[in-house]
C-alpha cells in the first residue's frame, strides 16, 4: 500500500475512529477476535420477509393449509416445522370470513344482512367484526372469534380486510416484529431507526455485533452495548441500578420520607405506619405513601404480603452505608472509563485533523501519525473492556476467582493509564516506547478477555 492510498482512506474522516476490527491483526492472531466478535450475516427486512414467506408457503403446501395459517403456527412454534405440525393439530385458526345466510347479529342484537363467520359458524355482522378486531388490536392481543366459549383465532388474511388504513399498517408491522422475534438466531439491529436484521452464523452468545448499515455495536444475545466480561443478566441489573440511583435514595428513605402532599421532609419516630405531616397535617401510610383516610379499606392490601416493615428497615439501615460505599467504588470507576472514552474520542478526532494538516505540510510522513492512531484505538479497546469489568466485579462474591479477576483488572488498569499518559504526551516519547506501551496494554486485555470467556 502506498502512502497516498492510506491518506485517502484517512482523509475520508466520516467513519467513526473506532472501526478498528480490521486494523488490529494482533487480535486475530490470538483469537480474541473470535472470542469477542459474533459471526453473523446482515440482511434487509425485505429479504427476511421473502425468506419467511417462502418457508411459510412450503409448510402450507405440505399441510394443505393457507399461508396465513402457516405463518401464525410457525411463529408460535419458533419456525420448527415438527413442533408446528403438533401445534396445528391442536389449534383452530380461521383464515377467512365467509358470508352466511342468517339475518340477526347476536353481538349488536340487530337484524342484519351482512353476516360473516369462519368455519366455526359463529356469525356476526361486519360492523361488529370491525369493532371487535380494532379493540383487540389496540389491546395488542390475538383476534379471536366473538362466539361464547369459541377458541378460534383469526389469522392475518382474515384480520387485514377488517382494519383498513393506519391500524392495518400497524398490525402488519407488529406482525413482522413478532416474526423476527420468533425466528431463532435472528434479531433486529437495536440502532436507532435501523431496520437491519442480524442472522446468527454461530450459536447465540453474548458477543459483539457491529451493524453493517448503521455501525451500532451491540451484544448479540441481549441487544445492549457489548459488555464482555460482564454477563447479559448482570449488565441489565447494573444499568438499571445506575439509572435510578436507588442506593442513595434508599439510604435517605430509611429514616425520612417526603410528605406526598407538601413534600416537606418527615422523620419517622415510632413504629406506627400512620404518619402525620407536621407542616400540612396530611395523614398518610409510611409503607405505601397512600392517603390514610382511604386506607381503611385498602390497608390489608398494603401490608398483607410484606414482611414486618420495621424489621426489614432496621436491617437495611445497617447495611446501607456499607453497600452504598461499595457501589460507589465500582460506579466511580465505571463512570470514569465512560468519561475517558468520550474525552479520548475527541482527542483522537483532533489528532486526525492535526495529522491531516501536518502531512499536507510535509511535516513527517503518514507512518509517524499512523502509530498514534493505532495506539489510540488500542487504548479505547482497553478502556471499553475495563469499563465492563466493574459491573462484573461488583456482583461477584468474594472468592479466589474474584481475586484473580481483580488482579488482572488491576494490571490492565495500570497498563491502560500508562498508555494513556504516553499518548497524551506523545511528543516526549519515541515511537518504540509508544508501541511497547500499546503492546503491553493489548496483551493484558487479551489475558483478561480470554480468561473470562472460558467461564
Amino acid at each position: 500500500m502506498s502512502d497516498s492510498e492510506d491518506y485517502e482512506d484517512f482523509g475520508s474522516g466520516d467513519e467513526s475512529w473506532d472501526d478498528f476490527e480490521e486494523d488490529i491483526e494482533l487480535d486475530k492472531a490470538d483469537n480474541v477476535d473470535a472470542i469477542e466478535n459474533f459471526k453473523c450475516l446482515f440482511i434487509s427486512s425485505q429479504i427476511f420477509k421473502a425468506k419467511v414467506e417462502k418457508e411459510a408457503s412450503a409448510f402450507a403446501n405440505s399441510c394443505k393449509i393457507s399461508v396465513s395459517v402457516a405463518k401464525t403456527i410457525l411463529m408460535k412454534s419458533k419456525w420448527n416445522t415438527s413442533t408446528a405440525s403438533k401445534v396445528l393439530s391442536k389449534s383452530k385458526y380461521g383464515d377467512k370470513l365467509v358470508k352466511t345466510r342468517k339475518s340477526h347479529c347476536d353481538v349488536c342484537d340487530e337484524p342484519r344482512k351482512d353476516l360473516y363467520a369462519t368455519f366455526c359458524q359463529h356469525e356476526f355482522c361486519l360492523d361488529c367484526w370491525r369493532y371487535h378486531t380494532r379493540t383487540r388490536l389496540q389491546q395488542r392481543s390475538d383476534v379471536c372469534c366473538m362466539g361464547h366459549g369459541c377458541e378460534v383465532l383469526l389469522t392475518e388474511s382474515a384480520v387485514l380486510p377488517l382494519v383498513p388504513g393506519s391500524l392495518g399498517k400497524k398490525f402488519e408491522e407488529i406482525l413482522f416484529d413478532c416474526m423476527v422475534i420468533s425466528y431463532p438466531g435472528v434479531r433486529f439491529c437495536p440502532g436507532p431507526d435501523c431496520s437491519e436484521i442480524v442472522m446468527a452464523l454461530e450459536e447465540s452468545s453474548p458477543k459483539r455485533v457491529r451493524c453493517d448499515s448503521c455501525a451500532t455495536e451491540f451484544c448479540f444475545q441481549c441487544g445492549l452495548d457489548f459488555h464482555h466480561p460482564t454477563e447479559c443478566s448482570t449488565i441489565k441489573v447494573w444499568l438499571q441500578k445506575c439509572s435510578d440511583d436507588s442506593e442513595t435514595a434508599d439510604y435517605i428513605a430509611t429514616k425520612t420520607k417526603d410528605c406526598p402532599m407538601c413534600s416537606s421532609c418527615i422523620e419517622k419516630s415510632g413504629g406506627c405506619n400512620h404518619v402525620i405531616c407536621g407542616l400540612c397535617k396530611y395523614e398518610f401510610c409510611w409503607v405505601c405513601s397512600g392517603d390514610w383516610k382511604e386506607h381503611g379499606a385498602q390497608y390489608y392490601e398494603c401490608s398483607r404480603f410484606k414482611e414486618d416493615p420495621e424489621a426489614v428497615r432496621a436491617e437495611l439501615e445497617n447495611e446501607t452505608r456499607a453497600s452504598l460505599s461499595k457501589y460507589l467504588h465500582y460506579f466511580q470507576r465505571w463512570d470514569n472509563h465512560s468519561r475517558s472514552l468520550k474525552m479520548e474520542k475527541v482527542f483522537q478526532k483532533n489528532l486526525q485533523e492535526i495529522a491531516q494538516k501536518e502531512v499536507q505540510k510535509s511535516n513527517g510522513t503518514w507512518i509517524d501519525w499512523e502509530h498514534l492512531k493505532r495506539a489510540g484505538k488500542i487504548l479505547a479497546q482497553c478502556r471499553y473492556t475495563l469499563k465492563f469489568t466493574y459491573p462484573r466485579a461488583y456482583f461477584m462474591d468474594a472468592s479466589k476467582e474474584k481475586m484473580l479477576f481483580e488482579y488482572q483488572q488491576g494490571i490492565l488498569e495500570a497498563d491502560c493509564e500508562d498508555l494513556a499518559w504516553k499518548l497524551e504526551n506523545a511528543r516526549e516519547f519515541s515511537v518504540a516506547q509508544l508501541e511497547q506501551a500499546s503492546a503491553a496494554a493489548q496483551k493484558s486485555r487479551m489475558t483478561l478477555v480470554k480468561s473470562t470467556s472460558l467461564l
Partner: protein
Amino acid sequence: MADSIAIARVQKELKDFQKKGGDLVGIRLDLGDGSDMMKFKGEIDGPPDTVYAGGKYKLLIEIPPNYPFSPPKIRFTTPIWHPNISSVTGAICLDILSTKWAAAMTLRTVLLSIQALLESPEPDDPQDAVVAAQFNKNRACWEATAKFWAQYHASAPGALNATYKDSLDKVVAMGFDKQKVLASLSQHDWNTENALQFLFN
C-alpha cells in the same frame, strides 16, 4: 361511535332481562333512576346448599365505552369471604371477565357465571391469597368464616357462630373498628392473639 353501540346493546340487554326475569334464578339488575346506562347495580342470591345460601350480594357493574367488545367491569360491594374474590376490594377473578370474554356474552350470562363461581370456588387461581390459603389448609374454619361473613354482611339467615361472635365483640370492645376486627380475625383463623397483634401494627 362504539359508545352508541354500547348504549344500544345495554338497553336491549336490560329489556331482555326484564322480559325473561331474573328473580327465579336469583339474579337482579337495578338501574336506579335509569340516568346512567354505563354504571349500575346488580344483585345475586347466594346459591342454596352453599355457605353463601340466603345471602344477598350487591355488585357494581360498569360498562366500558367499547362494550361488548371489552368485558363489563364488575365487583362485589357486599363483603364476601371467597378465594376468588378480594375480601378487601370485592374484585372478582373470573376468566370470562378478562381473557375469556366474548362479545356474544351478556350481563345475564356473566351474573350466572359469578353465581356459579360462588358454588364452586377455584382456590388454584386465587384473587385473595389469604382466603385461598385458608380454603386449602383449614377448610372447616374457611366454611365457618364464609358463613359468618354471609350472615354478618349479606343478611343470610341463622344465628351467628357464638364463639366467633364472642371473639369479635371482645376485640371490638378494645376500641377497634368492627369491620377491621372481623377481617383481621378471619385472616388469622380466629386466633385473637394474632389478630390483635396485626391490628396493633
